[in-house]
């Protein structure tokens, strides 16, 4: 098994009386997209700030690329913070030059990297404009270029899609997958589970400073042992709300679709027969639980210790 790109062991961070990160351990494998999930305030950003070397853990160790964390690792990490912003009065190019040089880039390599990414994101003609003159979408592109400019081996993106317009969101997803295929490792922190389903190979879920669930997405889903049904239908499904007592739970509900959980005492086949009497069924599919369900399940089990699944 290859050396993990990132390895946290019992990492703890306290601010004042608040324990923001509590004995957190996880590994991130090279060439994967790793999702760090959890609600706001779970400790994701605190964890990320330690990974990017902005703050130091109070205790525990962080290893990067197989070495104990040190200052020069900052040059190998591309970071897109949740709290993002640019120098308002600098031009796009001056901005990229300054921050690129702070990542240790030599001026010639820096110039060609800037040219490449400005071209790739089709904002080359804006390089002499000041940030304050750019539209929000343009600023987002510049921000993303700042993350990629120095060709980092590890990308850390904190809520990358927050505040992004759909076009840029699509662009970022596309570039992330392309970078993963090139062997880069990516850590995504988010509270939006759909993006995780789309991109992540492996996840760690945090709640109140602790890891509550971690492992490969597919394995976690396989392990859950819950029976879920995705149904598309026409008709009035309100009768299902009172059907709950017999072991059927509605997890998601839109006018024409439902995600149902079928309890152990019930058989999906029997349920289908029953439901078909009232509704016109267009789709009936047994599915794995979505990550959101796994997360809610994990939180419900707290404070019991949740075993970390390792491949």
């Amino acid at each position, binding site marked *: 098994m290859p050396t993990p790109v990132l390895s946290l062991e019992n990492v703890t961070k306290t*601010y*004042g009386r608040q324990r923001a990160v509590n004995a957190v351990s996880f590994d991130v494998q090279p060439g994967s997209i790793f999702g760090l999930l959890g609600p706001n305030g779970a400790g994701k950003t605190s964890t990320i*700030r330690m990974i*990017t*070397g*902005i*703050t*130091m853990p*109070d205790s525990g160790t962080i290893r990067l690329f197989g070495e104990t964390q040190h*200052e020069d690792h*900052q*040059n190998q*990490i591309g*970071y897109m*913070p949740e*709290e*993002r*912003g*640019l*120098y*308002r009065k600098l031009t796009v190019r001056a901005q990229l030059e*300054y*921050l690129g*040089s*702070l*990542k*240790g880039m030599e001026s010639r390599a820096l110039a060609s990297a800037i040219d490449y990414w400005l071209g790739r994101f089709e904002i080359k003609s804006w390089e002499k404009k000041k940030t304050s003159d750019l539209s929000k979408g343009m600023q987002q592109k510049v921000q993303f270029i*700042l993350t990629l400019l120095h060709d980092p081996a590890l990308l850390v993106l904190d809520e990358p899609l927050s505040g992004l317009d759909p076009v840029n969101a699509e662009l970022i997803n596309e570039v992330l997958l392309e970078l993963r295929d090139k062997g880069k490792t990516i850590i995504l922190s988010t509270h939006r589970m759909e993006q995780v389903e789309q991109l992540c190979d492996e996840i760690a879920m945090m709640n109140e400073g602790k890891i509550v669930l971690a492992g490969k997405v597919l394995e976690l889903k396989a392990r859950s042992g819950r029976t879920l049904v995705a149904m598309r239908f026409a008709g009035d499904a309100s009768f299902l709300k009172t059907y709950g007592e017999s072991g059927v739970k509605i997890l998601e509900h839109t006018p024409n679709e439902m995600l149902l959980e079928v309890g152990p005492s019930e058989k999906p086949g029997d349920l289908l027969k029953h439901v078909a009497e009232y509704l016109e069924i267009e789709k009936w599919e047994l599915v794995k639980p979505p990550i959101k369900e796994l997360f809610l399940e994990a939180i419900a089990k707290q404070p019991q210790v949740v075993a970390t699944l390792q491949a």
Partner: protein
Amino acid sequence: MNKTLIVLKHEFLQKVRSRAFIIMTLIGPLLMGAIVVVPAYFASTNTGDIRHLAIIDSTGRLAQSMKASVNDTATNVFARVASALQSKVLLDIVSPGPNAMDSLGRLVEAKVLTGYMTIPANAITDSASTAQIKLHNPSDFTAVSYLKDSYRNAVRDAKLTSRGIDPNVVSNVESGVHVETMKLEAGTEKKDSGSTGVIMAFITAFILYMTMILYGTIIMNSVIEEKSSRVIELIASSVRPFQLLVGKVLGVAGAGLIQIGVWAIMLVLLTTLGLTAASAMLGQDVLPSISPFLFLYMILFFILGFLIYATLYAAIGSTAESASDVQQVSMPVVMLLVVPFVLLQGVIQSPSSTKSVVLSLVPFFSPILMLARIFTETPPWWQIVLAVALMIGTFFGCLWLAARIYRVGILMYGKKFKLSEIAKWVRYT
């Protein structure tokens, strides 16, 4: 390249290339010069006119000698200034009569006459007597001075004569008494009026005070801008806060030194020109003699004071998201600058007293107070060395403290922080 140097270079070039900096660097001395030159210019255009004055002398004995002395540059200092400024005074003697005052009054109202003076009949005999000067502009300092000065001389001469003393004898006796103050140090004697040192102490104190507040605020705003624009998080993931802080302080300090250097050179040129002109005008040397050592001390104390205060201001900036948030937090630092300014006068008056020595050794006060002592006397060398050593130590102390506040502060958002909270940040690991 070292990351501190990258930050330093960036901050320095950002400042030096900005239009505001270039304009202020070039225009600053002009503004300062304007403060001196404009009033002088107005004064000179006022006095450039011909003044037409009249005297109604009821004694009948004073007007003639007043008229004789009024344009005599040998005895009248105002006449000397006036002749340099090419202004002239015409003095008419009007015999007292019932209508004399009325008709002169009308001429003054019509501005044909600058003003007139009435001398009472008992002017020489009664020392309680009062002469009157009536002008359409009573603030015409020059006209008033002419009349007063020549009146005083004329009365004195008349009193002497009435007691049988020749006024020339008295003038001879009065002249030829010269006193000179010398600065005595290290076996050499220098001509020094003493006032040069005091003036220099005040001017440098003022310049130091202004520039420390000005550049302290510039650094503070540069920190606040990075924080409020949220770019700081990205910077902090590339550079250690300590490197960022040092680079910022040194970069802005460099720009400040260049600006103040340019100002100083222009100011020295301007004042030298101005004082040379004044010396020529007044016929006496008013050029101060300042030893080049004093300039070296100025530069040294300025740089050290600058670094200490710039560092403190950077720390303050890191606690705020907008310039309006920093008032409470910046109070202690502003106080550190104001206190020596208030103490300055006392220290100049007795520069060697124990109180002055102790105060001038306090590192936050040294840039102003030790420099003031250097200008007014020469303190023992060990005191200067001690002050410099303490300031260097304090700079590193401030840097350590500021770095600890800074690394926490730059990541704290969403509220104003009290000093007590900030003190806790220092203890964070």
